[in-house]
């Protein structure tokens, strides 16, 4: 059963992984991190990606159009992933669903040449589930 560190180390085994972190999108705190931090500053990277994640999850425009926004329990985040690409890397943010109050996402930073975005997205979603469900 993986804890935070084990989950992040698993994410780092994906092809092209440069860095991975678990970040609280309300406080902007990184609860755990491995590998390199984008921009070289973990705290700044966490705070900035958290702000982006917060705007996405609070956006009515980006939420599902159906009536079940928030899922049956009301605890599913309205947005599942954020994907940002640039000329040399991918940033993949995956919201973690918990029954208790947690407001966190996984952030995986991938090298563009070596990374496989589609595979990483599937794996990161599985890791987010296993992190809280075991």
């Amino acid at each position: 059963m993986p804890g935070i560190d084990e989950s992040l180390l698993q994410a780092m085994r994906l092809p092209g992984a440069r860095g991975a972190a678990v970040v609280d999108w309300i406080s902007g705190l990184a609860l755990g991190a491995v590998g390199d931090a984008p921009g070289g500053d973990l705290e700044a990277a966490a705070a900035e990606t958290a702000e982006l994640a917060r705007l996405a999850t609070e956006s009515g425009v980006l939420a599902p159009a159906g009536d079940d926004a928030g899922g049956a329990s009301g605890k599913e985040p309205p947005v599942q992933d954020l994907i940002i690409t640039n000329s040399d890397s991918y940033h993949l943010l995956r919201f973690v669903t918990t029954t208790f109050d947690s407001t966190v996402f996984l952030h995986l930073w991938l090298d563009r040449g070596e990374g496989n975005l589609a595979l990483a997205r599937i794996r990161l979603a599985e890791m987010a589930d296993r992190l809280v469900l075991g």
Partner: protein
Amino acid sequence: MITPTRTARTDEPASALLGTLAAQGASGALSTEAGIVYLAAGHVVHVESALTPDIGDLLTHSGALAPDGWWEAIDQAGRRCRVGRQLVDSGHLAVGALELCHLGALFDAAYFVLAHDGPALRFRPGAAHWLGAVRAVPVDTVLRESRRRRELLHRIWPEPAIDLAPLARVPDADPADLPHRRSRTLAQVDGVRTAAQIATVLACRTFHTLVELRRLAAAGLVVPKVPAPAPGSAPAPAPAPAHVSAEPGPAPRPTAPDEPDTALLRRLLHALEAL
């Protein structure tokens, strides 16, 4: 639990003393008026505050863990200070879920204990928390994060009265299209409850509730309530809502599910422990 050793009271700010204790690799419990910081080998392993829901509140009030499962773990492992491990070993909680909830509660309480940095009242060497080791955090990280959180709240809306006063809605303000967390926070603003009480009702961390409340204040939807003008003109404020249940220490299982005010009881407990 290890028998506490008496130490002299000190007027040193809690943050300064924590720095010293970290450098010494100390283990024990540091009390301030706002709560208790638990150290193991110079790292912060847990923090409790009367103003924040603790990990038991967060897990059981949210429905993530049945109260029976929680109390079973307390009964079986509370005395050995291994409740966290017990929750995982008994299959009630995944390791990652425990770590996320624990860190959430730790940094939440630390903000209230350290952001305003009152004097340290007492350090009890060797005193351990009943939750046991889950994830240890460097003292520096906790201090820096508490300061950062204070600045974050200030940037959202620079009115600290929101944090402690009973809160009221602004009449006739239009709360259309609020994000889910903000609208459910606003729904609990009733002119009586404080941020900490709203957090308890929602099984939500208090700092995270404060962020929503300061955003609501910035949007002109919520104001801190001014003290009642004259005695007799208004009814006394109602006690905290009855949703507040189980005091989450390794204390006896409560017989009544609706304690009047968990925060008050916990503050009393902290005051007694600080003696």
